[in-house]
């Protein structure tokens, strides 16, 4: 009962305070907007910062933001990270919306859970660019590779190098993500089209070298001769499993990490090892950022922006292997110009 009496006074009091505060802040915001009309602020809501890819992704976008600030394209840029926690990212998004940036870039923790808050942002006149992990909200611009096509492309390379037949091991990423679902679908399309290719094992690799190595190592305990491995970013872990088990090396589709590139370039020098490597590099944040800058300045783009993966072959390998630190990724650098060349504004 006491609680009820208290809430009778407290709730309206809180409401009044909240209303007056929001009234104040929107008043000051419009004043600020009137002062500096075109260049606005851009923010990035990032769902997770705990791995090398994400850390590089944030470093990359910060580098672009410095450029854009220097040239006067934006006035401010900031990054907010959540710990792979949907609820935390939603509340951070709500706080960001109150600050009224021109554009919110988002790497979402869930394809659907953030739709509500993304819609709120769109309704408030903020452009939202979702990249890497897709979201289903209609109003957002979505930048990601075409994972099914990428899966087909990479699997085709492996099958071709295997001579069209043989045993393959598939190493999946984080099960259930749209990236993994898309790539698996692409792999399976190619495998169905090549009856000579037999899948002798599928393991979860979680896009992590250590996990992949342990699980492939376990599979090798029972697997017959393996001719090809499809592992996406944890290719180096898969190779380590073969080395540890003293099994002959199969065709492995590579990843652009320094560890893999260094190993590949050593193998190439020693015995002419030849493969291909491609991945969606962390610089996708730069591409999304420059799209955001152009959206803030009134340009328009299609809602679906297919991101090109960065490909390495024996021809450009050595240079990239030398310049890429072990835990970093060989990647492209996006500028305002190259982004507009790739995705022409309407």
């Amino acid at each position: 009962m006491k609680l009820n009496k208290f809430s009778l006074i407290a709730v309206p009091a809180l409401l009044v305070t909240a209303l007056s505060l929001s009234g104040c802040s929107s008043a000051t915001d419009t004043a600020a907007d009137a002062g500096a009309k075109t260049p606005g602020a851009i923010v990035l809501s990032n769902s997770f910062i705990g791995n090398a890819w994400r850390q590089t992704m944030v470093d990359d976008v910060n580098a672009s933001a410095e450029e854009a600030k220097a040239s006067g394209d934006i006035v401010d840029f900031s990054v907010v990270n959540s710990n792979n926690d949907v609820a935390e990212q939603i509340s951070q998004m709500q706080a960001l919306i109150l600050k009224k940036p021109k554009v919110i870039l988002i790497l979402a923790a869930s394809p659907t859970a953030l739709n509500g808050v993304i819609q709120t942002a769109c309704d408030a006149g903020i452009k939202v660019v979702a990249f890497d992990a897709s979201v289903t909200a209609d109003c957002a611009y979505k930048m990601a590779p075409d994972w099914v096509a990428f899966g087909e492309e990479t699997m085709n390379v492996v099958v071709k190098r295997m001579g069209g037949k043989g045993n393959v091991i598939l190493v999946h990423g984080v099960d259930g993500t749209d990236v993994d679902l898309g790539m698996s679908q692409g792999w399976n399309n190619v495998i169905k089209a090549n009856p000579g290719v037999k899948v002798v094992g599928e393991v979860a690799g979680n896009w992590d070298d250590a996990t992949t190595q342990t699980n492939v190592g376990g599979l090798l305990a029972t697997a017959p001769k393996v001719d090809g491995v499809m592992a996406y970013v944890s290719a180096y872990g898969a190779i380590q499993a073969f080395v540890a088990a003293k099994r002959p090396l199969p065709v492995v589709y590579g990843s652009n990490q320094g560890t893999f590139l260094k190993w590949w370039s050593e193998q190439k020098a020693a015995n002419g090892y030849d493969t291909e490597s491609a991945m969606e590099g962390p610089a996708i944040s730069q591409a999304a950022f420059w799209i955001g800058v152009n959206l803030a300045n009134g340009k328009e783009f299609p809602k679906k922006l297919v991101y090109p993966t960065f490909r390495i072959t024996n021809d450009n390998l050595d240079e990239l292997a030398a310049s890429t630190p072990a835990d970093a990724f060989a990647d492209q650098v996006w500028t305002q110009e190259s982004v507009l060349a790739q995705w022409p504004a309407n």
Partner: protein
Amino acid sequence: MQTIKSGFFFILRQPWSISFIASLVIVLALIPMSSRGPLDVVLSNFYLASFVAIAALGQMIVVSTGRGAVDLSIPYTITLCVYVATIVQEGKNDHLFQSIIASLAIGALVGAINGFAVVVLRIPAMVATLAVGFIAQSVVQVLSSTAGHVGASPALAELSRADIFGLPVFSLIAIITCLVVAFLLFRTAYGVRLLGTGQNDIAARLAGLKPSSTRWIAFVLSGLLAGITAILLGGYSGGASLGVGAGFLISSIAAVVLGGTLMSGGQSSVAGIFGGALFLTFLVTLTSTLDMSFGLRSIIEGVVILVALGVGGRNILKKSR
């Protein structure tokens, strides 16, 4: 005949027997499905189980102190130690010895902090070790972004692939570690204090067994064993990666329980640790050899572990005590 029979029942009555019997069942199922020889199947799983076994020994020591103690920081401590070891090694052999010392020291330090939180601050072990593990994980993120990735020492990587008469060197190290821990538990005063503390805290205190320092040392030992696991893991994977310790949370606890160590403390089984670790790796190999969806695999693994724990908890025949 009588002695063989009684010997058989003696083994069945041991708390660790269930893990080996369960492992045997899986191996028998696995061999017909495998395109490799039976010895190959057993040895390569034995190798993978070695890492889990060493980490689980630390878990076992902590669990043995009783009062529901567990060390949830083990996966993060391992990851941290792998990073520390590889950073000291810098991909060369020159600092191999220093890297081993550094990894053990950091492991022991994390263990000491766990012990401090549990013994002095009186935080329940489950909460304290989780919090300390979270701190270790954060340190790893700082290390990985500032120091970057450097490879493991080539000599250590070489050692990870070496074997003596077919037995991998790393498995040999795991067996030796087991023997040392068994000696510590069953032949030293500390072992008596540890099991006594786990059986009855108050009685142990009245008997002058110093349960507080016993607990503290248990956490330090767990950290040390995580450090040893980390050195081997670094050699195995040729360097550090952020997910390197991730699998050790469930596996270290499951190996302890499957191995016949009482979760309520006071009864340890070193032999069972290896059986439990073997069982877990065989199980993963089995589910990845059978062609089934990942969700189904996890469900089967979970159910099999639950059943094994249920049977193991009853000790097949009857209580050994």
